[in-house]
């Protein structure tokens, strides 16, 4: 199953996107608990694009989802400020100050988080999760 979303980089798109993504995860056979975590990881990545990559500039972001029997891959693309989240060090937990948890959530939930540095004008982040840990 393949599905592609083109979203405006504004916070009001998050909830409707999650509604559709929830159905996709359900149809792809993910149990609810894990599905909610994948949903969270992708929501955190999109929030970062809206908040940090575009920062109130109008922009687009795309989410391309490929779900197969054994794994799901989500590719996020934006044309905001170039930023490689895989380089952000893990925070010390528990954090007593607000914020700074989003990338940690993505890293903890997904099996792989890969930043593609090929295109100078685009950010491209691949998130992969296998149904059974390999």
């Amino acid at each position, binding site marked *: 199953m393949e599905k592609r979303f083109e979203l405006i980089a504004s916070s009001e798109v998050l*909830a409707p996107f*999650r509604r559709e993504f929830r159905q996709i995860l359900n149809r792809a056979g993910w149990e609810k608990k894990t599905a*909610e975590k994948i949903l969270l990881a992708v929501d955190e990545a999109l929030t970062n694009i809206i908040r940090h990559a575009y920062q109130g500039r109008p922009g687009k972001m795309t989410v391309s989802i490929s779900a197969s029997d054994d794994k799901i891959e989500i590719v996020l693309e934006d044309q905001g400020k170039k930023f490689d989240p895989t380089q952000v060090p893990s925070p010390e937990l528990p954090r007593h100050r607000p914020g700074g*948890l989003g990338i*940690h959530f993505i890293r903890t939930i997904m099996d792989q988080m890969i930043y593609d540095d090929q295109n100078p004008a685009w950010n491209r982040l691949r998130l992969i999760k296998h149904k059974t840990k390999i």
Partner: protein
Amino acid sequence: MKIQLTSQGDIQVLELSGELDYHSSPDLREKLTELTMKQTPKILVNLGGVDYMDSSGIATFVEAFQKAKRYQGRLILAALTATVRGVFEIAKLDSIFEITPTVAEAVKCLGAKT
């Protein structure tokens, strides 16, 4: 995200329902800031109706929790759904916050004075 403020004796109860994310968290932040600015001694957040929460929700609670601590106030989170509890767990914050399974237990814990 719906937010309702009621009181039970000297406890201010915030009842939330819906999804708590980057878009909706400023509304919650505003309500919590009002309470902490007034140095409300006992704040109870009923999360029973919240079926989704992300790190923006967590950040909002951490901020209010720290503010309440500064004036010796208390903030208790009650009735978390499994999903929301899971998010506190990934953040390892489940041991930092006062969390009770039900609203009744939170009320007991805070010792409502009427």
